[in-house]
């Protein structure tokens, strides 16, 4: 079954969507979208390094994404203007990555695949990496759900309940780095944040509790992956962007049906 590239691609897309959904909800709730951008842009640098050092792309991307995420996380507590800091780091990392890639022989063509993903080229071992990473992220989020949610609501409330909000922030940061690293093959560096945010945003008008929002986001994300692949196959469109387009369509539908529901309540 896994010999069919379309089935591998579908499973890869679903795997990323399932991990991205609950994490994406936190990204939306905590207004960390730019943080996600910074982490994913840094991943390009990781890719360049891993090609230069003949490491797996996953390892390099994960390492740099982790360093980036942790650096930003630590600096965020020091009273810097967050968006400026992220702007500096995200784009410097991206630029540095692109420059670094240009020094490598014969990888210029591959760059597009990393920027926009190459889900149809997912191998069995890629699939294993994606699903292990996704399972890890989902397990961590489920285990820490209450603590993560409490510290998202209010840091002082968390402290008063014996939860360390900085530790929870670090857990989210690590999860973000893992999702970025596993999603590179599927949607590419430039569209990872879309997979985090759009399904969560689409789920928002349809949800009354944080848990339902995460579950609905996962369903919508998986749906976008499946339909996007289908669309790409039929109309011969680039796959990663097709998935994101379908997700955007679902967002609009969610928005309209949420409005409708609000007006009938």
């Amino acid at each position, binding site marked *: 079954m896994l010999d069919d590239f379309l089935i591998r691609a579908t499973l890869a897309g679903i795997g990323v969507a399932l991990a991205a959904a609950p994490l994406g909800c936190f990204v939306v709730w905590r207004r960390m979208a730019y943080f996600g951008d910074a982490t994913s842009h840094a991943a390009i640098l990781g890719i360049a390094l891993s090609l230069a050092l003949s490491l797996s792309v996953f390892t390099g991307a994960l390492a740099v994404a982790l360093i980036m995420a942790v650096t930003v996380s630590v600096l965020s507590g020091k009273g810097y203007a967050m968006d400026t800091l992220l702007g500096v780091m995200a784009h410097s990392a991206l630029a540095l990555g692109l420059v670094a890639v240009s020094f490598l022989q014969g990888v210029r063509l591959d760059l597009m695949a990393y920027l926009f993903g190459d889900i149809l080229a997912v191998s069995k071992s890629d699939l294993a990496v994606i699903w292990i990473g996704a399972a890890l992220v989902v397990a961590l989020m489920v285990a820490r759900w209450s603590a993560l949610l409490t510290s998202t609501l*209010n840091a002082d*409330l968390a402290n008063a309940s014996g939860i360390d909000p900085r530790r929870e922030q670090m857990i989210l940061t690590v999860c973000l780095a893992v999702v970025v690293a596993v999603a590179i093959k599927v949607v590419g560096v430039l569209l990872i944040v879309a997979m985090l945010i759009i399904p969560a945003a689409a789920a928002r008008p349809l949800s009354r509790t944080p848990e339902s*929002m995460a579950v609905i986001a996962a369903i919508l994300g998986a749906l976008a992956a499946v339909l996007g692949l289908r669309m790409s196959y039929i109309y011969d469109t680039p796959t990663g962007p097709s998935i994101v387009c379908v997700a955007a369509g679902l967002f609009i539908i969610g928005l309209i049906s949420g409005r409708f529901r609000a007006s009938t309540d």
Partner: protein
Amino acid sequence: MSLIETQNMTVAMGGHIALRQVDFHINSGEIVTIVGPNGSGKSTLLKALIGAVKPQTGKVTRQPKLRIGYVPQKLHIDPTLPITVQRFLSLPIRRSKQDIDSVLDRVGANDLHDKQMFALSGGQFQRVLLARALLEKPQLLILDEPTTGLDQPGSAALYRLIEELRTDLGAAVLMVSHELHVVMSASDRVICLNGHVCCHGAPDIVASAPEYRALFGTGTHGALALYRHDHDHSHDHDDHEGCTHA
């Protein structure tokens, strides 16, 4: 023994000293209010007491297994986060429907169960926060400016409720407040803070203390301070620079 006490506690926040050498204690059943200008370290003191910030020097001693109900200042819930009152009260510890019903009932918010948190009015929100603190079955209730954003009837009702809860639960209450008239009538003790403890004691005593007047009397022309002793208003405030922020 006090429920919680600090000895010679100094706390640094963001690189500067926010509180210097604070000795503080609160006993069972007491209502203690902290007053002080903005930036005087009121919230920092509460944060140190709940363990959110570590003192640089000195120490905080809590009674073993002390149950604290904490009502934070200005809790903003983002509309992007859908959460019902009931779910909010079950965080981070799952509470039974029965417990939730009973605390909501107690604070007069039993119709709010399924409402979204971000859709609550200021008064409803404070009641829900109070209900959440009550779920801890607190021995000590800590409130950081509980009436911020409430109108006068709203804050009067909230203070009445807090007073009732103290009687019912036998809990001590520690709060930060700007409403000095309320403070003076409802507190057993008042602590006047400005980076350090300027003065403390029974409301009458604090109100007539020169340090307190120096903080609240000048500049406001008495609009903020409670002048119970207007007739002996003969201090020169400049004598009390010892209480201005270093």
